[in-house]
């Protein structure tokens, strides 16, 4: 992974935690990819609820609509397009945040009534992640994880189609990708028209 968070050095403990997660990831990724291809063809997208949460819970504020996160004044929120986390790990990360980083926790009572990474508020101490502006119920967290898995994880550069799917037809946010798309078409040598 070429992407390193700018601001938040990870502890060894987290490094291990993430390492463990990655070992399990490869297998699930194949399954997820298969699932995505199947779902894409349908018109009523079962992950629409997750998309709504992605907007409402302001994942957009840090990871952007396309999930790529990216540099800037506040440093990097990791790219969810390049994430290697599984559905379960995303659920855990959203619910518990990530200690010592800017990734907030979205579960009410995390580190208090709900244990996170086997840690209480006391254990996590000064590395307590920030509390999200909105708390999400377990079902909502699952929905947003499903949305990340099917629409963001593993995707390449954001494109016009994805942008319109997120913002709706006619959004000016997407015009730059449209321009991109047409230059891609112009420079393409295959002779096919899009």
């Amino acid at each position, binding site marked *: 992974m070429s992407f390193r968070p700018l601001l938040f050095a990870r502890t060894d403990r987290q490094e291990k935690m993430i390492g463990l997660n990655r070992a399990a990831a490869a297998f699930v990724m194949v399954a997820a990819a298969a699932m995505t291809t199947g779902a894409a063809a349908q018109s009523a997208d079962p992950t629409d609820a997750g998309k709504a949460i992605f907007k409402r819970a302001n994942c957009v504020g840090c990871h952007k*609509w396309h999930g*790529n996160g990216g540099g800037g004044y506040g440093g990097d929120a990791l790219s969810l397009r390049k994430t290697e986390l599984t559905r379960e790990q995303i659920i855990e990360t959203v619910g518990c945040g990530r200690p010592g980083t800017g990734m907030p926790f979205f579960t009410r009572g995390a580190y208090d009534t709900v244990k996170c990474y086997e840690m209480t508020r006391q254990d996590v101490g000064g590395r307590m992640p920030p509390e999200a502006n909105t708390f999400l119920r377990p079902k909502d967290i699952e929905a947003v994880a499903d949305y990340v898995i099917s629409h963001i994880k593993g995707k390449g550069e954001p494109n016009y189609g994805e942008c319109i799917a997120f913002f709706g037809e006619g959004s000016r946010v997407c015009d730059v990708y449209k321009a*991109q798309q047409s230059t891609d078409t112009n420079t393409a040598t295959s002779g096919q028209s899009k």
Partner: protein
Amino acid sequence: MKDFTRHRLSLRAALLATVAAVATIAALPGKADEVTPERLLNADKEPGNWLLHHKDFSATRFSNLSEINKGNVKDLKVAWTMQLGGVEGGGIWTHGGLEGTPIVENGMMYVTDGWGSVYKIDTHGGKGTLLWKMDPKTDHDWAGAVACCGVDNRGVALWGNLVISHTLDGRLIATDKETGQVAWQRQVADPDKGEVVTGAPLIVKNMAITGVAGAEYGIRGWIAATDLTTQKEVWRTYTIPGKDQPGHETWKDDQNAAASGGGSTWVTGSYDPASNTIVWGVGNPGPDWDNEYRPGDNLYTDSSLGLDADTGKIKWHYQHTPNDPYDYDSVAENVLVDVPGPNGSTEKLALEADRNGFAYAVDRTNGKFVWGLPFVKKVTWTKGLDPETGKPAEYDPSKQVQLYNAAVTPSRQNKVTDICPGNMGGKNWPPTAYNPELKLWYIPVIESCNRITVEEETPAKLKKREFWTGGGPSQPVRITGSVTAIDVTSGKIAGKFETPFPNLGGILATPDLVFSGQPSGEVMALDGKTLAKLWEFNTGGGVNAPPITFSVDGKQYVAILVGLGGAWDKWFIDATPELKKMQPGSMLYVFSL
């Protein structure tokens, strides 16, 4: 859009319109209370009004109203308040904030909220009555995704019978002063390129001058003039010179860094009618913290510019931080003051308090350095300014990449480092004020250090509408603030009033008082000479806008917008943990005795 215009008003307008119609006024449609270029030039002759963004073309923010003074300011009370809108979020922002300067003309006040809605408020009779609201329906997603530093709009300007304003999504809008109907609008900036507009327009003659934001998104900055009679662009001066222009040689790379070189202009400038010169500040180069990407001095970033008002031609420049590796922009307003010089001469100065922690006086006829001094408590990036040139002592023109105090300077070799002042400054956009009687210049200070982490940029990483910063700041150190006074005759610090939080609002000066605020909610009045605190009121909302004063029905008022937004609560809040509890808000406060 609702029209709350009262019968009395329309009648008065109609009557005055008849009078105006009899007199013939060139170029401008005849109308009541119309704001002519002549009135703007003589703004100080209308003491009860606040006609220009910075009060006058010299940007003094000084009012000689003195009904409220040292002796009685302790009795200042809330006269009325008004709830405004625009708190909703958009793009990467969870909410909007208020950074605007109210404009007041003959008892009518014009304010904006963060998304650019304009409110006309009748302040007669000791109360505020909303007459109309013009909602420009700013595209929240399109603009909010490329606004580096908040959902902000710093206010309107008046011209003829029109209210001139900007929107975050890059429009210049003219609204009929009486009806609140949009007369016309023009797209000046392009959010597709990462450009947004947050500043108030400056009216010079029949032109509206617009500045742009976006140096964190790889723009090439500019200042543009729109002819308000024809609605056409008169000139657009790029702050990064083109290939055949002087200054281009200060971009020494071979990857066209100039094309995305930044140089924003998002703070309203000043104007010197005697020499027909617009003085305007230019922001940081991009990428902010990877200065090895853009070897050379990177003109005209981090500079003050003197521009010919009719053509936009650059007459002079003064650069503060060549090849800036700190995000120490120079967008700040230049205050134009005349002070007695040697042998009975008059020094015509332009004063600028820079993000880099130094206050500068340059000769505004030619851009030559006169004096400079640090106005913050702690500076680590340089040992000081060269007394002759004003350049940082370590500046080496033969070097392509400046390191200044290399031990603390962010670079590809020194990737995580703490700098003082931090990248917010020093002094940010909140405006200074100048008392011409006391010859004191008051700076709203952010006393800060912060940590910079450098990320190497490559041309492949440059993408439209994505951050182009070469790293980012974090906040391991508490940040406080002050109001710091400088004696302009000596170029020395005359006093410092320290505050627990950074000054994010700016200053108003009256003959013997200074008004300011805190992001923790307090609005305060200080003694203009000693800076002792004489009065304070807690609004309960974060003060992120400058106070003004005006009079109506023969009575003096102080007005201020309250609602914490901007860059602070998203990017810098860890340096002021107590401010995390401040709620978004959108409220106008008006005080009187």
